[in-house]
């Protein structure tokens, strides 16, 4: 009984987190802000889901496969977010490094910037 309540609470938290993240994805103004909402969706919600299945099923083959999939999402999610932000930056300025856009436009900065 207590186990079922615990599982229900964890699942409700995971679902609420996913719904809030997708609403945040839609509500933000630009893509840089939207990428931030991938993190709770791809990091926290899978951990809650894996915890719920571990509590429900115990240590079984099913829960092991679940954790395999979820750990893969948790590990690769930040790499994918980083690659996405890098791609957005390159599409906008031609290079991911800071200052590359200023070099491309010929802006060398103010005289006080030079040593």
């Amino acid at each position, binding site marked *: 009984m207590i186990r079922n309540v615990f599982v229900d609470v964890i699942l409700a938290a995971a679902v609420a987190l996913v719904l809030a993240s997708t609403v945040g994805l839609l509500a933000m103004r630009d893509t840089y802000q939207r990428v931030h909402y991938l993190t709770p*969706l791809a990091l926290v919600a899978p951990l809650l889901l894996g915890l719920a299945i571990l509590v429900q099923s115990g240590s079984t083959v099913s829960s092991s496969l679940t954790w395999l999939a979820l750990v893969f999402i948790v590990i690769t999610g930040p790499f994918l977010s980083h690659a996405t932000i890098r791609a957005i930056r390159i599409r906008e300025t031609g290079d991911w490094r800071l200052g590359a856009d200023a070099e491309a436009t010929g802006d060398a900065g103010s005289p006080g910037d030079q040593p």
Partner: protein
Amino acid sequence: MNAFVAAAVAMLVAIVPCGFLLVRGTIMDAVVAYEAITAIAVMVLILLAEGFRRSGEFELPVLLAVLMFGSGLVFVRLLERWL
């Protein structure tokens, strides 16, 4: 309908805002929405396999999680400069 199936249905509802963003946003917004949708799809497959007690179907989300990473990287790499 147990709690896992109900959670799967609720998570499928979360795909609607992502679909709206995918259709109406810029191309990089669509990539972000695609990444969110694939992460949700992995969780939905896990929830359905657990909800219907089908242990053989737990391999699908593992495969999708691996493919999600590869396809996401291919998308962002191509959209970086060439598309």
